[in-house]
């Protein structure tokens, strides 16, 4: 049940996208997300859509997984679409009391929805194809130049790594405590909202206790191994760019250039 959460979860594989360097992937994703906002015409959105689908095929992820990542956000998607459809002024196509739908509204609604879906799918591709540890490694490298301005790059990355590392552990722990309390007759699924909130106490108290215990243990273990932050630390695996990263970056930059051209120059 708790392990069904897929948004932002790594899905192991050996595709082109999986093998990309995390730094390249991060930068390319950021550039493409900006590019998505350049696309304001129908044609431009087709280009974006084709590129997103192309990347999807490259990742060789099951299509079902992508749909699953959209599921928790469908309310936002429908809401955005609704707002645009009902509030954009223009030629009225349909009217009912003070509700009215305009053709501009339909167009904008469709555009915004497409944009949102592309955004979610493309950014979830990043987390689906990159393991969290590799991803934070990439972030650390990208932040490194900002260290001279006081950005604690290594510390931030370490915090993220630790947080990510403990998500599955804590989920497992939650599952275990839930089962243990269920076996003692606890009920987590029915009752009024207040009742349900109170029923969470037998779950939350042990969970907090164990989270603090784990944090304490981890700090001790790190200290015992003489951990002292980012000073001159070497790493087990060094990141390195390959031809793939060049190809991917070139692809994204060309698409972005085309989209920018369509918006401002064409």
């Amino acid at each position, binding site marked *: 049940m708790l392990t069904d959460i897929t948004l932002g979860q790594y899905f192991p594989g050996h595709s082109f996208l999986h093998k990309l360097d995390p730094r390249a992937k991060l930068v390319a994703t950021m550039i493409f997300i900006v590019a998505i906002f350049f696309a304001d015409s129908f044609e431009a959105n087709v280009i974006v859509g084709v590129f997103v689908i192309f990347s999807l095929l490259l990742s060789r992820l099951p299509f079902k997984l992508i749909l699953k990542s959209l599921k928790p956000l469908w309310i936002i998607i429908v809401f955005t679409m609704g707002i645009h459809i009902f509030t954009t002024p223009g030629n009225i196509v349909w009217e009912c009391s003070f509700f009215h739908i305009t053709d501009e509204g339909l167009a904008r609604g469709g555009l915004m929805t497409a944009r949102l879906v592309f955004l979610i799918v493309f950014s979830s591709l990043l987390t689906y194809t990159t393991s969290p540890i590799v991803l934070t490694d990439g972030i650390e490298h990208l932040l490194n130049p900002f260290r001279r301005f006081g950005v604690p790059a290594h510390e931030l990355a370490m915090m993220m790594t630790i947080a990510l590392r403990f998500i599955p552990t804590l989920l497992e722990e939650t599952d*275990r405590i839930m089962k*243990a309390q*269920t*076996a*003692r*007759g606890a009920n987590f699924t029915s009752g009024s909202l207040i009742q349900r909130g109170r029923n969470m106490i*037998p779950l939350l108290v*042990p969970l907090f206790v164990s989270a603090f215990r784990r944090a304490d243990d981890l700090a001790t273990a790190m200290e015992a191994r003489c951990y002292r932050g980012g000073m001159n630390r070497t790493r087990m695996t060094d990141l390195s760019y390959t031809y793939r990263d060049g190809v991917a970056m070139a692809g994204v930059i060309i698409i972005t250039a085309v989209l920018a051209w369509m918006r401002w120059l064409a």
Partner: protein
Amino acid sequence: MSITLTDVSYTYGIGTPFEKTALRDVNLEIRTGEFVGIIGHTGSGKSTLIQHLNGLLRPTTGTVMVDGVDVAQKSKEVMAMRHKVGMVFQYPEHQLFEETIAKDIAFGPHNLGLSEEVIAERVKEAMEFVGLDYDTFAERSPFRLSGGQMRRVAIAGVIAMHPDYLILDEPSAGLDPRGREEIFSGILKWHKDKGITVILVSHNMDDISRMADRLIVLADSRIILDGPPLDIFETRQDMLRQAGVGVPPVTEVLQYLKGRGLSICDKVRTVDEAVQYVYDGIRGDSHAH
């Protein structure tokens, strides 16, 4: 009255790359009044198996019936069934949450909807069962106890529900010998006096051979052996070794002596018995000379 598993298989994470089958075609009947020991190597499916016995996991295929109630259903009967099957998980001390020990033990009985007087009585009885003095400990915080004491509070919390079936997953892990002895002697007494069914999961062959009258050995998600422990130790050592569990140390010693030519009985449960057998064996030998 029994717990019956028919062709039960269970797979974790269906449809993901992490898919893993933890149980395959398990058929099992646990009858009332038995003391069943379940043993198996890490990852052999023990924990998955016991979570089926009170419906915490629903089988992917097959059926689990507890006293005639199918656990896969979602009904009041299943909730009631759950109360009959008490479950002590591994490291149960991690589930404590109340301000006082007495309140924590009362959590289960409270969920049963018992009256305050009955609950108070059960709390007292359960604390006595695990060897914690009521007057000293009842009003203390469970988080201020030692690990072994916390374990006992957690076990008391399940005992206080008066289950017909008591499932214990590695209850002695991390306890000192005395704490272990206290918990096990209590459980054995309950088993004998009240006739409750005990299902004990353990890595420790010694514990199982001493207490269980039926042994189930799991390996690679299947039940490979099922029978009286002493018979299994005598005839199926090879399979036990293959499963990575081996025979209890006492049995091992006696089997070694027997192998070296001492006429001795190797069907032994406790060290005291073993001492007696060795004594008899040597005396018998010297008389023969």
